């Protein structure tokens, strides 16, 4: 019953990928256009330098094109591209300081993500307070947990896809996710409790 849209997207994706591997320029165009925004947003979590992110996405597709004869036909396209971009950015970040002065620490082991509360969806004050609390808790999660939560809940990826993107075992994904959600729920409960308590007292 996992969403019907999901089922539809995957084969399409795969067909484009296979045509890309077969060397069709049209498929190159299609594939890159289709995934550019997602990759750009994901890449921006590792570096604030927009141009650096764009360059890396470009290079990623050029490298894949170069090596298309050696690539597997049977992959989940989106996670594969995200994982490859992640690796490529980390590699290019390491070789960057030799050529330019840009600071690189920000790329290695970083995952910068900004959560926001869009108030137009909020109907009453208590919802607003709760959502803002939740945002704060999300902001306070350790980096890796943040990334897992982002991929799972905001990119709707499953466990094996996340494990591919982050290059960790599926079990580690489950563990990170479980710890993160537990933390969010635990804190949230106590914070909520305090919130209601205050309301009562007032």
């Amino acid at each position, binding site marked *: 019953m996992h969403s019907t849209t999901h089922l539809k997207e995957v084969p399409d994706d795969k067909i484009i990928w296979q045509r890309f591997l077969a060397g069709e320029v049209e498929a190159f165009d299609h594939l890159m256009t289709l995934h550019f925004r997602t990759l750009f*947003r994901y890449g*921006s979590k590792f570096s604030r330098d927009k141009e650096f992110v764009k360059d890396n996405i470009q290079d990623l597709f050029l*490298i894949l094109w170069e090596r298309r004869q050696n690539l597997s036909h049977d992959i989940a396209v989106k996670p594969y591209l995200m994982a490859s971009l992640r690796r490529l950015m980390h590699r290019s970040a390491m070789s960057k300081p030799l050529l330019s002065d840009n600071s690189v620490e920000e790329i290695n082991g970083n995952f910068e993500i900004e959560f926001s509360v*869009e108030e137009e969806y909020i109907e009453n004050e208590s919802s607003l307070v709760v959502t803002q609390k939740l945002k704060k808790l999300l902001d306070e999660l350790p980096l890796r947990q943040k990334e897992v939560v982002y991929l799972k809940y905001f990119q709707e990826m499953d466990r094996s896809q996340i494990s591919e993107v982050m290059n960790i*075992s599926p079990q580690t994904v489950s563990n990170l996710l479980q710890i993160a959600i537990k933390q969010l729920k635990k804190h949230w409960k106590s914070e909520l409790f305090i919130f209601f308590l205050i309301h009562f007292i007032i």
Partner: protein
Amino acid sequence: MTWKHMNDYKHYGIEDLVWDTFFRQWVLSPTRETDNKWKEWLSENPEMAEKINQSRQIVLSLQVKELEISNLEIAEIVKETISRTKPLLGDNTSKGGFEIIPFYRKFWFKIAASFTLIILFGWLAKSGFNRNNQLSNIQKEIVTEEQEKFTEKINSTSASILIVLKDGSKITLAPLSTIRYPENFANKKREVYLTGEAFFDISKDPNRPFFVYANELVTKVLGTSFRIKAYKTSKEITVEVKTGRVSVFAQSDPDIKEKTANHELEGIVLSPNQKIIYARDQVRMVKTLVEKPEIIIPKAQIPQFIFEDVPVTDVFDSIAKTYGIDILYDEELLEGCPLTAILDNQTLHEKLTIICKAIEANYEILDGQIVVHGKGCRN
């Protein structure tokens, strides 16, 4: 998650709903099907309306701030990228390609250089390795000695194909996969070589173990069915067991000669519904469960999963037997937990989730077993 479990949501709090995949799916990208289902459920459970409403607001309003980029800019970048591939078209020996690109893109050039280095290192490492690595020699010997008698099947179709070997074993070869096997098996063992993915249903012959060589992994069985995924470009090799037992070891295993020679199963032994994941870059094996464990006992013997006030420990034991999977729990703690539930149509994971929710416990998969953590029910 199937529709049947809509019942579970009765006990959900806001904090559970907000992180529930199925609930989020409905809120963020509803389909007519999910919308009807939730609305129907809400009319049956009107007391949940407030919780649902608040959870909805939270899911909708809590977003990730993403950088914007216009379609126009994307189109331009894509166009520019494609124009840079042109000189490479028709040039299949990938080396020249990197040099055609102007040097002004500095780190791009850098990558080419590091690739060359990596390849060089890889080559050096490999040639050094081969000299010491007995196994790769063993494998080569086998291949060269009996080369004429080998059959190689490459599945270039888009569907799986069935191959029946002389010993009656069946191999279902996935698309884009290759299997190589001798026309006649040796007297003491049966050996095949796989690249890609295949499902094996091996006929029993305890005196002639069956070996599958797939990339760095060796799988040894006596008679059983299992699936191997060993694509060249994939970072993982996996072996999933359906029936019987198999043993798995790395080609780099120093004791490989003994392990392949005797008739016992050694190395890591997998039983039904267990799976091994071999991380190629880390040379590390992890034992876990297949994604959807299946019932392994004959249909007639499957117990009815209808429990009324039954100790949860009995329920776990019954499930463990049905799926052939060990379930570990603290007997003293959980003995006093009674369970009333109908668990006939769910998958193993759904069953466990429901049970754990009922007794306020959780479970994890550890080394191919299920471990239940709970506080017990004696208050």
